[in-house]
């Protein structure tokens, strides 16, 4: 049975007083399950990657416990989030996929203006829909990173059952995905927690809502569309 989280397969009222609903409860659950398990996986994985980090594994009970925790959190990372696409909150999850795979000219314009924004300046770019170019790239790195790190991780986990040539390639694939996702996560966390303009987005991942001001300032195309949709649905 589907756990329909704030969806019930109907368009909810998105704009409520001075706030705009940005993420459904299901989307927020997926985000945080993925984020927390990512860091557990990163921490325990680094214990295997290098003897520099290995001593830190004593806080978990040693490297062998860390390796077991790596496998357990991998299940959350993949299975829990994966299930959200099918029985948890499918509609909104697939809509996110649809959004971020639709990379447009306006997204490129955002991306080229983005470095300036990142360092506290103001770049010029067209009005953005729900996800701007930078967010789409972050999402795409997460999606592809997750797929590749999972496939390679499965091969590494059950190495004796796979051809040796495949196992040998799984190692660099696992590391490459890890480095890419970690670099993206560092920038992502900065924008969510520390960046003066964009940190207002944080509440969207906590209670689901962002302020109208934020929505208008950063995602006016999205905001205007929601306003139109809401007008229509109230009329009918």
């Amino acid at each position, binding site marked *: 049975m589907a756990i329909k989280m704030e969806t019930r397969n109907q368009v909810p009222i998105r704009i409520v007083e001075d706030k705009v609903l940005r993420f459904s409860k299901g989307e927020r659950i997926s985000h945080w399950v993925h984020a927390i398990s990512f860091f557990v996986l990163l921490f325990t994985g680094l214990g*295997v*990657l*290098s*003897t520099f980090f*290995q001593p830190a594994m004593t806080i978990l009970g040693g*490297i*062998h416990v860390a*390796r077991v925790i790596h496998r357990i959190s991998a299940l959350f990372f993949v299975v829990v989030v994966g299930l959200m696409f099918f029985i948890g909150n499918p509609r909104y999850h697939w809509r996110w996929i649809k959004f971020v795979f639709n990379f447009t000219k306006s997204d490129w314009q955002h991306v080229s203006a983005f470095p300036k924004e*990142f*360092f*506290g*300046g*103001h770049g*010029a*770019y*067209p*009005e*953005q829909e729900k996800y*701007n170019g930078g967010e789409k790239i972050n999402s795409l790195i997460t999606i592809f990173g997750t797929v590749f790190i999972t496939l390679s991780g499965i091969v590494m986990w059950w*190495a004796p059952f796979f051809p*040796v040539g495949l*196992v*040998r*390639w799984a*190692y*660099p694939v696992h*590391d*490459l995905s*890890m*480095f*890419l996702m*970690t*670099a*993206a996560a*560092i*920038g992502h966390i*900065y924008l969510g927690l*520390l*960046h*003066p*303009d964009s940190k*207002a987005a944080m509440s969207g991942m906590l209670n689901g809502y962002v*302020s109208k*001001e*934020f929505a*208008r*300032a*950063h*995602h*006016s195309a999205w905001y205007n569309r929601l306003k139109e949709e809401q007008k229509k649905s109230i009329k009918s």
Partner: protein
Amino acid sequence: MTRKMVLIDTSKCTGCKACSVACKEWNELPAEKTKLVTSYQTQKDFTTKTWTYMTFIEKYENQKMDFLMRKAQCFHCANPACMKACSSQAITKTVLGYVLIDHDKCIGCGYCVENCPFGVPKLDPIKKKSYKCTGCIDRVENDLKPACVHTCQPGALQFGERDVLLTQAKKRLAEVQKTHPKAQLYGEKEMGGTTFLYLLLDSPDVYGLPVNPTIPLSLTLWKDVIRPVGGLAVGGAAAAVVIGVFANLLKGNYHSNKEKVGNDPSSINKGGKD
């Protein structure tokens, strides 16, 4: 101390398997249940408790059978893939040319198992350690020959200084080639030159050995490209964040922002409208 060598002269080997028994004896490795693999071969592969075994290949040519026998064990490469792959700096190479696993450091990740071009190390999933031939380093460092060499009756195994034995091996090869034209040395150049070096009677692939063993390309890419470049990317992202925080501090963005967002809608036109 100079580099040592064990010459395995397969032209002298009688396939008696005493070497594998001596290995078990000295290294206190328990016997395992064996099974007939081919006519004489009773061991298919290395195990955590079998570090050397005999392979027997029956080669038929012109109605004649040639019995190709080879003692298999770790090659102790000068350029060991296992050492490069090891996650825990547990594998080292000694000046004698021995490649050794330190079981205090080994965590049993299996990276050496998967990357050895000869499939030598084996993983004990319970002990979570990788095992292979030690070359009897504990004997050699006490001026004894490796157990297998010590026991070899037909003199197919010889132990000595690498330079001296290699010269000898080449002389012997010229001799053997008179009857076995395809005979060759295996391990002189392979993997940077191996400590356990063979005089084979035929080309390596006939014995099931890789003709051109190398460090896997994936391993080089992993350790020498993705690791340093990935580290730089993560470091670069972290540096960009630190610079970003300071840039915003210097521009006073942390103060002005609070007033802008929330109270005064007219000034919040970032993100395109300006």
